[in-house]
């Protein structure tokens, strides 16, 4: 079906649902000839999105060094060409950014854990002992998750019955809360790289791996938590823990499980895709890496040596099914499907819908309150800016009377279509966190450059082990040029204060407002209140195209 045929039609009411259902069916989405003797189900980076959402994939996702030009660093038409995806098709809508607003009218929302439950149940109907593995970033990212300190997600995920999980943003709940939840988890909490900070020894509460007997074979699942938690997030919230990539220890764990009789070795990883690729080349004996953190969704595994890397997207938008044929201590074959969760096509599981609604009920009024409306497509993903962060930076400049605004380069947060209402829930979906204070401070031009250079190196260092997996810090009121091929200290130039058009003076002091500082004791109003106040004043928001970052060396 051509998307354009429906662009003029109403996206409201049942039109979107009918269109999506004409183009797709649940049976098609779930179609899979069961293969081998083991099934893995991978979901990751849900960011507490219990309900269906819109989610636009990035237009700009640059790779550097050896990863330049390779997936996931190709987007749009190049991505569709690489995988033979037709323009305007459901798969194009799910995996690429172009024509997003129009295709969203046709194919509707994605995700929703009640739809995910239907998919998981269908796979379990084929293979009752399928392993469900959660890659983490689960207990973070929404109004209800914040107000229940992750309990809503714990309750819902427990009902999905995962077999194991690893971690990232979970730790921003604070170590006391994380420990409390993990103690009661009815499944394995894994991370070979979660160490006790004081003793530099494996943390007792998180096991490195777990064995599962499946299909007559012994499956070892090794966890790999996000390596740079105390750097990318506030370490003072979980001072007892230390992380790191620790690939020597990963090799030791792979050797240990092999020696103990593992027939197949699966890594449940929150490394990010390029780090996983490098690790697959350094650590021998891994069959499958279920990759999370960088929110990439790939329709085919990437093979590094003998290791298959699977990337399963984010925000509940995808589930990967990976069937393995394991015989005599060897993986003989692998079959994979990235299943997009089209919310209007996949029937919700009624028990799960009820459980989700139960979590949300105490907050229903607050969640649903309409704060304003958007004329523009609001999305976050992209290396340098997204319209959501442009809006957030506008809010910071105007509400906090700043020259320059900074918004962290996180990759979570659903999209809104032009014409959509902006509810309080929508604002929290792109801002909620346990350190959301919007600071206002003075910085010299020189220091602003230091920050930009530092963050740029966390994305564009040619060695993935020195990257942290986010995007560039988003800026408002400031323009700059970035040459991504240069080393740290030489990437950023031509910094300009947009309101005057003058060059940033290294010695001069500017008023900067931002949020999500990793420093303890950061003061200011919460970012969601700042954004809500700004949108309320605007009524209807329009975000103009942002051309203030000049990217070279692509």
């Amino acid at each position, binding site marked *: 079906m051509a998307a354009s045929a429906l662009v003029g039609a109403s996206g409201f009411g049942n039109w979107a649902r009918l269109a999506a259902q004409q183009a797709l069916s649940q049976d098609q989405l779930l179609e899979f000839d069961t293969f081998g003797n083991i099934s893995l189900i991978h979901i990751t980076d849900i960011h507490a999105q219990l309900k269906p959402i819109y989610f636009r994939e990035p237009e700009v996702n640059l790779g550097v060094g050896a990863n330049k030009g390779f997936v996931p660093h190709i987007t749009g038409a190049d991505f569709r060409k690489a995988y033979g995806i037709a323009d305007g098709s459901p798969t194009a809508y799910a995996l690429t950014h172009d024509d997003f607003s129009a295709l969203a009218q046709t194919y509707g929302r994605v995700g929703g854990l009640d739809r995910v439950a239907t998919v998981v149940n269908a796979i379990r109907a084929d293979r009752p002992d399928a392993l469900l593995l959660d890659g983490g970033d689960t207990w973070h990212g929404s109004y209800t998750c914040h107000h229940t300190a992750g309990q809503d997600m714990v309750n819902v995920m427990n009902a999905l019955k995962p077999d194991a999980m690893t971690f990232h943003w979970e730790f921003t709940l604070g170590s006391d809360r994380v420990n409390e939840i993990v103690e009661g988890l009815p499944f394995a909490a894994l991370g070979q790289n979660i160490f006790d900070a004081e003793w530099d020894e494996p943390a007792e509460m998180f096991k490195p791996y777990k064995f599962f007997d499946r299909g007559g074979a012994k499956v070892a699942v090794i966890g790999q938590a996000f390596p740079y938690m*105390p750097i990318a997030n506030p370490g003072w919230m979980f001072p007892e823990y230390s992380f790191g990539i620790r690939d020597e220890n990963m090799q030791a764990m792979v050797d240990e499980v092999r020696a103990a009789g593992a027939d197949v070795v699966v890594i449940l990883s929150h490394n990010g895709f390029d780090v996983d690729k490098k690790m697959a080349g350094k650590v021998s004996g891994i069959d499958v890496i279920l990759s999370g953190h960088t929110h990439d969704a790939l329709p085919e595994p990437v093979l590094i040596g003998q290791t298959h890397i699977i990337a399963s997207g984010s925000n509940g938008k995808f589930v990967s099914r990976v069937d393995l044929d394991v015989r005599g201590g060897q993986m003989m074959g692998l079959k994979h499907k990235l299943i997009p969760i089209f919310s209007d096509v996949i029937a919700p599981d009624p028990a799960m819908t009820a459980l989700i609604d139960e979590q949300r009920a105490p907050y229903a009024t607050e969640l649903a309150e309409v704060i304003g409306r958007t004329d523009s497509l609001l999305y976050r993903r992209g290396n340098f800016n997204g319209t959501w962060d442009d809006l957030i930076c506008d809010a910071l400049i105007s509400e906090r009377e700043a020259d320059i605004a900074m918004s962290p380069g996180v990759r979570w947060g659903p999209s809104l279509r032009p014409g959509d209402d902006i509810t309080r829930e929508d604002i929290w979906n792109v801002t909620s966190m346990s350190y959301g204070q919007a600071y206002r401070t003075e910085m010299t031009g020189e220091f602003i450059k230091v920050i930009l250079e530092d*963050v740029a190196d966390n994305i564009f260092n040619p060695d993935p082990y020195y990257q942290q997996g986010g995007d560039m810090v988003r800026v408002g009121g400031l323009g700059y040029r970035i040459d991504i091929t240069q080393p740290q200290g030489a990437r950023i130039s031509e910094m300009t204060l947009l309101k005057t058009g003058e060059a940033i003076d*290294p010695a001069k002091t500017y008023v900067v407002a931002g949020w999500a500082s990793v420093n303890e004791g950061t003061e200011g109003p919460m970012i969601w209140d700042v954004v809500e106040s700004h949108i309320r004043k605007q009524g209807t928001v329009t975000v103009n195209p942002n051309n203030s970052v000049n990217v070279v060396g692509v």
Partner: protein
Amino acid sequence: MEFTRRDTLGLALGAAALTVLPFRANAAAEDAIAEFTGGADMAEGGVTLTAPEIAENGNTVPIEVSAPGAAAIMVLATGNPEPGVATFNFGPLAAVQSASTRIRLAGTQDVVAIAKLADGSFAKASATVKVTIGGCGG
């Protein structure tokens, strides 16, 4: 442009250690190496240095060195004003020739381990440890 960690401590985002540019190995580090090896060539391999790629806290970075059969291992933080960290000497009765410690790094730099092996030859390993502001991973 030069920022030291101390300069940035008072700034809004600077509580985590940071520097602008990777520090370059200084003359003091080269002198220390020359003194330890007597100017002998150093082989790659034979000594293992384990260090984090990115420091969680530049003030206390855990590192580990090992070199089977070594008589001594010297560790240098080549970008620190005082690059000498430690020299571990292993007596003939030492069961394993490995040691771990925590070091302070003034900024992104190479940490170097040089082992004096049983046969009197020298081996070298190095690792770049990045010290960063952080704060934007997502």
